[in-house]
């Protein structure tokens, strides 16, 4: 029965291999299985929401994909090819970029230094090419936040929205194919939230796949094409947003109940 539903879902989406596929991934911390046999996928130009309570394991799952944690078990494929991701550097090499909930900015250095952190541009002498980095930072920031002028100040002096722009700029500047956004709007006001929404749509059109992790079910309904719901480290189910009502999704998050329109996962309540 499950197989039939899988086929139905597969015909609804292009027959290319998924941009990213995580298969049967598990990780345990001190005997507690934070992520337990979870399989998720993401196609080019698609926004997939990862939903679940605090402690459901969604952030942990995504940290495995971004290289912050190494999985105990499971496989990650990018464009159908198995890859080994054991560090943030590996993930970036696979075109997987992450915007962390905390933004993960070095507060004491400026926007350009943050955007290029770990991937600095060097001169022919092997020294930092701050001018070239500033020039590119101005370009990419001009696209995200045209009014931004504070290129010489440490990012701690910037507003929440500006800091968010810097974190996003860092993620998209290096030809990301997969973007992971962990609670991208949690710290933002309504106008800035809308701005992030616009950006997500724009990136989607460029063919970038986006994992959107959020508490906010309204955000997810606005932006996502599909959702994966997690509970207690397991996948409750996968569904197309257009097939779901908000109540059904809330039922998946809170009760772990998989409605008829969704493909149940191992974590679905009986």
């Amino acid at each position, binding site marked *: 029965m499950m197989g039939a539903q899988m086929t139905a879902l597969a015909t609804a989406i292009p027959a290319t291999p998924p941009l990213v596929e995580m298969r049967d991934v598990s990780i345990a911390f001190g005997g507690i299985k934070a992520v337990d046999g979870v399989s998720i996928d993401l196609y080019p130009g698609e926004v997939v929401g990862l939903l679940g309570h605090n402690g459901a394991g969604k952030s942990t799952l995504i940290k495995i994909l971004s290289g912050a944690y190494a999985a105990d078990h499971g496989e990650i494929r990018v464009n159908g090819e198995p890859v080994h991701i054991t560090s943030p550097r590996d993930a970036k090499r696979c075109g997987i970029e*992450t915007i962390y909930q905390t933004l*993960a900015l070095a507060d004491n250095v400026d926007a350009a*230094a943050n955007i290029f*952190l770990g*991937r600095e541009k060097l001169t022919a002498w092997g020294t930092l090419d701050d*001018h070239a980095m500033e020039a590119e930072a101005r370009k990419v920031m001009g696209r995200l936040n045209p009014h931004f*002028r*504070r290129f010489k100040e*440490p990012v701690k002096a910037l507003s929440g929205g500006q800091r968010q722009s810097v974190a996003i700029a860092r993620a998209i500047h290096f030809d990301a194919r997969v973007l992971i956004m962990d609670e991208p709007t949690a710290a933002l006001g309504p106008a800035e939230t809308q701005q992030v929404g616009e950006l997500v749509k724009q990136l989607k059109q460029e063919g970038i796949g986006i994992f959107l992790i959020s508490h906010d079910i309204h955000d997810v309904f606005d932006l996502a094409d599909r959702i994966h719901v997690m509970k207690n480290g397991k996948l409750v189910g996968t569904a197309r947003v257009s097939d779901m009502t908000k109540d059904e999704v809330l039922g998946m998050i809170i009760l772990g109940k998989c409605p008829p329109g969704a493909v149940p996962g191992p974590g679905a309540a009986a």
Partner: protein
Amino acid sequence: MAEPSTTLSPAPSSEAPVGRRAGIGDALRALELDTRMVGMIGALAIVWISFDILTGGAFLTPRNLWNLSVQTASVAVMATGMVLVIVTRNIDLSVGSILGFTGMVVGVLQARILPEIWGFENPLTWVVAVLAAVAVGGAVGAVQGAIIAYLGVSSFIVTLGGLLVWRGAAWWVTTGQTVAPMDGAFKRLGGGFEGAIGAGPSWMVGIAAVLLSVAAILVTRRRRAGFGFPVRPLWAEGVVILLVAAAIVGAVLVVNAYPLPVPVVRRMMEAQGLSTDGGLPFVAHGFAIPVLIAVAVGVGMTFLSRRTRFGRYVFAIGGNPEAAELSGINTKRVMVMVFGLMGALCGLSACIATARLNAATNANGTLDELYVIAAAIIGGTSMAGGVGTILGAMLGAMVMQSLQSGMVLLGVDAPMQNIVVGLVLVAAVYVDTLYRKGLK
């Protein structure tokens, strides 16, 4: 120095809102000077002028300033490394002991081991001694750094242990015996009249420094203009160049106004077979070698911290260790390098201190860790991490030494000197805290 407004210093933005009335504030902003650095230089100037008045003009003499610069060199060299250590949210309490240990090693090497191989006063002795000191110090620091980074023991504990271990090791090298005298060429590293380069070479060093600074400023300006970034107005660029040139030329004039002692000049004349009947000429000291070493270290460390990946990572780790890790930076390796560099600089300082004393003793460098940390802190390095400049730390070392030197001239007794230095340290950090709050 080449670029006063860098990413790492909270310099006023050149892109401040336009349309305000032009005034002194705007003029200062156009200069893009680091206000905090200007404040430090101002504080140093106040200390100097006060002491000069209190001592009836005995402080601001070429002789005293020259001695002050030599006395500052050893601590200043180590303070440049301490800046990077503290910027990464760590501390190194072992620098004085590493200095003592490496000092004993170079002492034994040049006074006992090398003479057995190639005799006394071999021209290579001092080179081998310095390289050995830097290598031993670097190795000691790297080991401590590896324990901190890979075994996860806090730097406070590891280097507190190091403070005891290396001081004990310094004693073990000769079971407490003092080693003296040092190699003649090596001794020049410590200053004294034989360790000064003379008037002519001092001018050459000064002119070279002016030319390099001007070139650096102009190259930076051209690159910024080439990218279409805002640059300082031409007049401001000229003022900055003039200030830099004036500081360098001023330093040359001071060291060239300090004459060698009369007996030394007479001996030099006689050695060259010249008659001393017509009176003795004025022969200047010029820059002291340890001071040139310290300045070179300062320039090198500034370059390292601002123009290389390593320096960028050091500051990023200090600003947000987790972010640095997530950016793919190998933070553990950077930490080992920071402590290794600190150790290597201790080795270099050990050469200066040992040469100046013309003896290696196992007590050399005792309490230096406190002066080095104080210099970095007074120089604006934040204990919270992420903020600090090499130049600031060197000025901090100068402030500390000026206080001590001035109090000696005034005849203040030693316990009182410690009280004053301690109070100044706390007051300096308090003022800095206020300054930072004002920025927010």
